[in-house]
């Protein structure tokens, strides 16, 4: 037991924000160099996997689909029918490719958070969700302006049908919620879920070690803590799928709001 506790002696507890800044890969092990880390590698890997998977599975499309083609088609069909068309209406088919890309990219990026031995999601750094939210933000405004023209779009999105005396109150609120809160909440929702999920797993994993370090008799509690880690990994799986879906549905609903004629 003495040897074991010497090995475990320097487990950092509690986990902090610092745990998200992994050492660099390309200049191996450097600490203040973030040009090529595990996060960067995972994002590239995700992109490559998605591109290769969809290219390969749709290279020779057949009437009776093969297994790969079936998977690709059901992912695309799910987003097209259950998100794009259901939220936006028949015009939503135009946006299905973007929404599918968004959905698969977020899903796979999130999924690294629970893959054993990888166990960190690139989306737990706010830069990636922020960029995705910016793309969606620019897109729904662009779509709205293209559909209505700038002045009419501003009128449709900012002036709700209400008595004139309440408008001075409503217009700032509408502006705040549509143009300021939307991109921010899209980005922060995805980021905070992935961040909190990683933090939760760290607390229970490292907590087990910390208790074992404090006293060898705490071993049963450590085991409970590690069992909790496994249970929470399943919870994380739920959150991962949910957040990818929510991000896609919200983007679709913003596009729908930009295309809608009246409130």
């Amino acid at each position, binding site marked *: 037991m003495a040897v074991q506790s010497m090995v475990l002696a320097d487990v950092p507890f509690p986990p902090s924000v610092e745990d998200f800044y992994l050492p660099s890969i390309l200049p191996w092990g450097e600490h203040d160099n973030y040009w090529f880390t595990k996060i960067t590698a995972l994002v590239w890997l995700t992109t490559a996997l998605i591109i290769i998977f969809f290219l390969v599975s749709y290279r020779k499309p057949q009437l009776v689909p093969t297994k790969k083609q079936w998977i690709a088609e059901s992912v695309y069909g799910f987003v097209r029918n259950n998100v794009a068309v259901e*939220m936006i209406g028949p015009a939503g088919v135009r946006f299905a490719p973007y929404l599918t890309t968004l959905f698969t990219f977020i899903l796979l990026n999130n999924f690294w958070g629970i893959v054993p031995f990888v166990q960190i999601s690139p989306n737990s750094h706010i830069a990636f969700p922020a960029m995705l939210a910016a793309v969606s933000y620019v897109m729904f405004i662009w779509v709205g302006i293209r559909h209505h023209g700038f002045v009419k779009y501003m009128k449709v999105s900012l002036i709700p049908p209400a008595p004139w005396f309440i408008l001075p109150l409503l217009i700032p609120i509408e502006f705040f919620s549509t143009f300021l809160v939307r991109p921010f909440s899209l980005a*922060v*929702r995805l980021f905070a879920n992935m*961040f909190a999920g990683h933090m939760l797993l760290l607390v229970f994993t490292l907590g087990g070690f910390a208790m074992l370090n404090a006293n060898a008799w705490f071993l049963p509690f450590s085991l409970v803590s590690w069992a909790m880690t496994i249970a929470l990994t399943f919870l994380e799986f739920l959150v991962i799928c949910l957040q990818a*879906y929510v991000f896609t549905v*919200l983007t679709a*609903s913003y596009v729908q709001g930009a295309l809608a004629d009246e409130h």
Partner: protein
Amino acid sequence: MLDIAAVTGSTAAIGYGLAAIGPGIGVGLVFSAYIQSTARQPESSRLTLPYVWIGFAVVEALALLGIAFGFIWAG
């Protein structure tokens, strides 16, 4: 003044605990309404599901703002 008992730590944790009450109630209301409407009218379940997720996401945003500001103002 003599300290009889003292607690150390971050008040941000307490603040976030308080901030999570509201969204907790809100998320509960969203899903309770969905379950109730589905129990009353099972064929409407697919129709209302997207709105459930939107409502859930909007309510949950408050709790997530709490996390973000908790870290910003943790001090």
